[in-house]
Structure formats: C-alpha cells, structure tokens
C-alpha cells in the first residue's frame, strides 16, 4: 500500500491516505454496555447494586401510586376503601386542588381570571424567550403586567391604566431629554411618571372599585401555587435588570456609584431571605409615610427582588470579568460610547456567559417563594401546612400533598433549566 521506502530517510508522499470508518468494535449497544456498566468486576457489582436499589424504590412507590384513591370525602374514607392495602389518598387533590392552585380565599367564581392571566403570560413570555418570533409581539409583553394586574386583582381598570400612563409619560420625557444628558433624561422621566401617578391617584375616586367590571380581590386573598408563580415571575423579571445595573455599578469608576453598589450587594448577601421577609411583613411599614398602606404583596416583591438582584449582580460581574479586556478596547477604539459598548458588545457576551448562574438563581428564587408561608401568606406550602392539613378531613395526608407541590415546582424549574440549555446552545457562536 505504500509507495515509499520506509527505511530511507528521504520521503515524499505521492498518494493521500483516504479517511476510513472506525473499527466495528467501537460502536453498538454491546460495546456501550461493556464500557459503561460492566467494565470491571467492581463496576459490574455497582451496576447490580444500583439496579436493586432502583427496584426497591419502584416496588415501594408504584403500588402506592397505582392503588391511589381519587374519590373520597376524607382520609378516613380513603382508609376504609383501601381496607389495609397500601395506597395513596389522592382524593385530597381531587377535592382541594382549587385551593392548592388559587388559595382558599380567592372567589371561586373568579378563577377564570388568574387562569386567563396565566395563558396570557405564556404569550407574553414567548417573544422574550424565543427571539426568532416577530419583535412586534414585545408590545404585548410590555402591556402584559398591566393586563395581568387588572385580571388578578380586579377592581377599577383605571388603576392599571394610570400606572401605564405614568410609564409612557416618563418614557417620552426620557426620550426627549436623554440626548442632552442621561441624568436629565432619567431624572425627568421619573419625575413626570411620579407626577402622573400622584395626580392620577387623586383623580380616581375612592369608590371606583365598588362597581368595577371585575370584582376587586385584595392581596391577602391571593394564595396557592398562583402566588408562587406571581412572586417568581415578578421578582425574576425585576431582579435581572436590577442585577445588571448593580453589576455595572460595581465596575464603575465613579466612587459614589461603586460604593452604593458594593454596600447594597454585600449587605443583602449577608442577610438571610427569611429576615428580609420578616422585615417586609412587619418593619417596612415604618419606612413608608404613616398614611400610606403599601400592599404586603408589593413589600414582599421588593424584598425578594433586592435579595436575588444582589446575587444576580455577582453572577453577572463574573461574566463581565471573564470577557477579555480587548473587547472593551475594540468597542472603545471604534468610537462607541459607554452605553453603546455595554449594550451591543459587553452585556450580550457577559450575559451569555452568566446564563447558567442566572438560571441557577432564578430557579432558587422561584423555590424560595415558598418562604412567604412563614409570614402567613398562603402560598402552596402555606395552604398545605395551614388550611388543608389542619382540616379534620385531611389531617395527616402529607405525602400526597407535598408530592403534588413537588410536581408543580419540578415541572416549572425543569422547564426553566431545559430552556436555559437550549438558549446556551442557540447562542453558542464561538465554535470552540
């Protein structure tokens, strides 16, 4: 096959060696089993032990699930039906699922409103998550918070319209003045929004809620998994921008901005979330003017947002630090100003690097929303531990209820995790 003399020093290749497929033993199922499960005797032993453990777990749980009772009035009835057999009492879910999802005070006739808001949320999230969709859909995303607020809390439609008007007015003022200076634009925008809200607040009559199109539901009547979703979504979407600002602030060359960012991040990271939640429920009222009654939901949102923003800021700072200095220099040398360099060059890359970290915190934050049950808000865990387990019918049905909560959280968190992996693959342009 060789046309050269292997033993001579001078060598000239005259034919190319064609590429050939790998040996057959390197592929196939048997090969995979050998290599991964039964490579050595210790390996085989571990495989057999692992299969036995999996068998034990399934042998315990599968009959329990399969024998489950879905229709009964109480735990006692379940036990009668099962008559000594092993089996779950899923009847508690059949009977109490509206409470687990919506809380026990949300008016039954109004369940369609949060449900509708949930589906609208999916529509609003779509253009944010999948950027191949037409960008015009983002208009709906921008309107969604106001629509969702109106649907869930009900009451007069004037409140969300006023809130929207404040943002729109502020935005126009910002657009007008930002060309002169960023501070003037941002300050002017905030001031105008504030004026619109205050003046509008006087104009909306106190009785507006009474004959509104949608029945007004106060925040303390919200509950169940709906509350977890609301807190999770609101806090994640607020804390990512705040985290970006804090991360950039911490990198700033201006001592005041840098100082504020560092103190904020280090303080928040040094305090447990539970403590912040107690502050939100009990003490935060002292910081607001005495006549204002800031909603508990809002107070909790502020606290969780600040908490996760501090963590997200540190994750993003890691992403910023991972960028080569050359990227900043290239952006500078092309004449891009700070805002352009950050928005077009630095942040897209830093955020891409930070995706796993940000998702980690978002998933953690979502699960941490169950902590609000300790400040007597009835989220899904609060509902289970409180009204449901305390009732005479269902006292003692732990596995089924907590299992249900696990399933709810797992579906959401696993979805987030799968999305982030897709996003990372989608954004991979470095072809390493």
């Amino acid at each position: 096959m060789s046309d050269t003399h292997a033993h001579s020093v001078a060598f000239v290749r005259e034919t190319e060696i064609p590429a050939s497929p790998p040996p057959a033993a390197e592929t196939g199922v048997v090969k995979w089993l050998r290599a991964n499960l039964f490579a050595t005797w210790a390996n085989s032993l571990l495989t057999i032990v692992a299969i036995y453990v999996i068998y034990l777990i399934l042998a315990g749980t599968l009959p329990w699930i399969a024998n489950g009772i879905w229709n009964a009035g109480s735990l006692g009835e379940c036990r009668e039906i099962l008559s000594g057999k092993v089996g779950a009492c899923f009847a508690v879910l059949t009977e109490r699922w509206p409470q687990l999802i919506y809380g026990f005070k949300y008016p039954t006739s109004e369940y369609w409103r949060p449900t509708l808001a949930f589906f609208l949320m999916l529509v609003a999230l779509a253009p944010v998550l999948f950027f191949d969709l037409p960008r015009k859909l983002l208009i709906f995303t921008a309107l969604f918070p106001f629509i969702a607020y109106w649907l869930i809390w009900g009451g007069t439609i004037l409140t969300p319209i006023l809130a929207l008007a404040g943002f729109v007015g502020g935005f126009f003022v910002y657009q007008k003045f930002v060309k002169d200076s960023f501070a003037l634009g941002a300050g002017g925008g905030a001031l105008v929004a504030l004026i619109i809200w205050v003046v509008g607040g006087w104009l909306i009559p106190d009785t507006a809620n009474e004959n509104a199109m949608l029945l007004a539901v106060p925040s303390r009547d919200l509950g169940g998994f709906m509350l977890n979703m609301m807190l999770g979504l609101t806090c994640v979407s607020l804390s990512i921008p705040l985290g970006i600002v804090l991360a950039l602030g911490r990198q700033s060359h201006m001592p005041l901005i840098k100082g504020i960012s560092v103190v904020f991040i280090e303080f928040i990271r040094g305090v447990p979330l539970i403590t912040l939640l107690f502050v939100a429920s009990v003490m935060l009222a002292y910081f607001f003017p005495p006549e204002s009654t800031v909603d508990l939901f809002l107070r909790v949102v502020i606290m969780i947002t600040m908490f996760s923003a501090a963590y997200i800021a540190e994750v993003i700072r890691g992403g910023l630090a991972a960028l080569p200095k050359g990227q900043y220099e290239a952006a500078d040398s092309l004449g891009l100003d700070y805002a352009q360099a950050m928005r077009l060059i630095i942040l897209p890359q830093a955020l891409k690097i930070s995706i796993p970290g940000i998702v980690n915190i978002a998933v953690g934050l979502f699960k941490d929303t169950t902590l609000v049950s300790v400040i007597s808000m009835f989220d899904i865990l609060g509902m289970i531990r409180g009204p449901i387990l305390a009732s005479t019918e269902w006292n003692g049905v732990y596995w089924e209820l907590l299992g249900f909560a696990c399933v709810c959280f797992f579906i959401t968190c696993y979805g987030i995790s799968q999305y982030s992996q897709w996003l990372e693959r989608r954004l991979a342009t470095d072809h390493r």
Partner: protein
Amino acid sequence: MAEPQMKVSEEIAITIQNMNKWYGSFHVLRDIDLTVNRGERIVICGPSGSGKSTLIRCINALEEHQQGRIEVDGTVLSSDLKNIDKIRSEVGMCFQHFNLFPHLTILENCTLAPIWVRKTPKKEAEETAMHFLEKVKIPDQANKYPGQLSGGQQQRVAIARSLCMKPRIMLFDEPTSALDPEMIKEVLDTMIELAEEGMTMLCVTHEMGFARQVANRVIFMDAGQIVEQNEPEEFFNNPKSDRTKLFLSQILGH
C-alpha cells in the same frame, strides 16, 4: 515597489509634543515628540516593554497620558469624552489579538460602528462593509462568526472593520505577532495595499521586511524614549546608536 503613489503631503495628521506617561510610579513614555504628516507610514519597533504599544494606544486614548499634548486631525486630546469619541471615530485600530466581537457575524462586526456611531443607514453600512470585505478578500465569509475563521482571516476582518468607519489614520498594534507564518503574509499584503492608497499608518511591528518596503520612517524606541528615527534604508543599513545596532543585529541575526 509602488513608490510613486506613496506621496506624503505637507498636512499634519498627528502632533505629539513633550508627552509623558506613568504607570503608577513607572515612567513608561518619556518626552515623546512626534509629528506625522498625512499619508505618512511609520513603523515603530523596539524591544518588548519599550513603550511602543503604549505610545500608539495613547493616540486614540486607550491609554491616558499625564503630560504633554496630543493633537489628532486638529482635535486636541483632552479628558473631554466628546473629543475622545471624535478622535476614536477618525482613527482606526487593529490589535494583536484581533478583538473581533465573537457574538456577531463578520458582517455585523463591520456594520456595528458605522450604524451606531456614524448613524449610517443599515443598508448603506452593509454595502460599505461588503466593499471592504472584498478589499481584504473575504466577502464569502460575511455571514460566518469570527470563531469559524483562521487567524489571518480574522485580522483582515479586523482591518476591514476599522476601514468601515472611513478612518483618516490607522494604528496597528503588532497585527501579525499572533499569527502563523503562512498567515502573516496575507495580512501584510492587505496592509501594503492600504499603504499604497495613501492611508496614514502607524504600525508597531517586528516585520522588518514590511518596514523596508512600506515605511517612510522607522522609529526605534527603548525604555520609553524615541532612540532613533530615520528613513528605512538608512535606518537598517546605517544605524547610528549602539542600542539600535544591538537590536537590529538581534532581530536580523538569524
């Protein structure tokens, strides 16, 4: 080779007077005086740590100088951000490690600054970008990402990206030092073509063949000072200072 087109005008492009720079207490650039005429091509060489990169990075304010005066194209470099951005948009720069934006395609790399800094309409910016990508002979890579290109191709994209801003001056900071020998030539060819068109160029490089062929002036720096400057023939054949002789014998010795 191609001498006739390489005219140097009387117009002054860059003036550096009495410029000093320190890193902390370390005096990196000492009393630099340099005038560059429009159309002039200057090669700066010297041992590592001699301040040659720092010098050209001061010209577009990537590094701040503490003393002295730098005037680029009639704009005096001050700490005023508006002046700095103006100078940067007139002065193109190529880096040793290319510094392309890895999250953008080749075409987007080239159109980004014209669109956002010059406010050029997107279509026009793309046409300009394709023009310069053809000039550096890689128009077919326009929709790829930098990570898919070879080093030499990336450096040529970086040159095209700078040219898209229609700069009047180009700075090159060791553009071929991170490249394989085979790729050095393609980048140098692009730079030679640019020089023949009369671009004002300041180039930090160790490619002495390039210096002989293209430069009208070679500057030798050591320890933060300009030690010797001369026309290339004279500089290479008849160096005056001992330091220059030593340097040349070392880099041309093998």
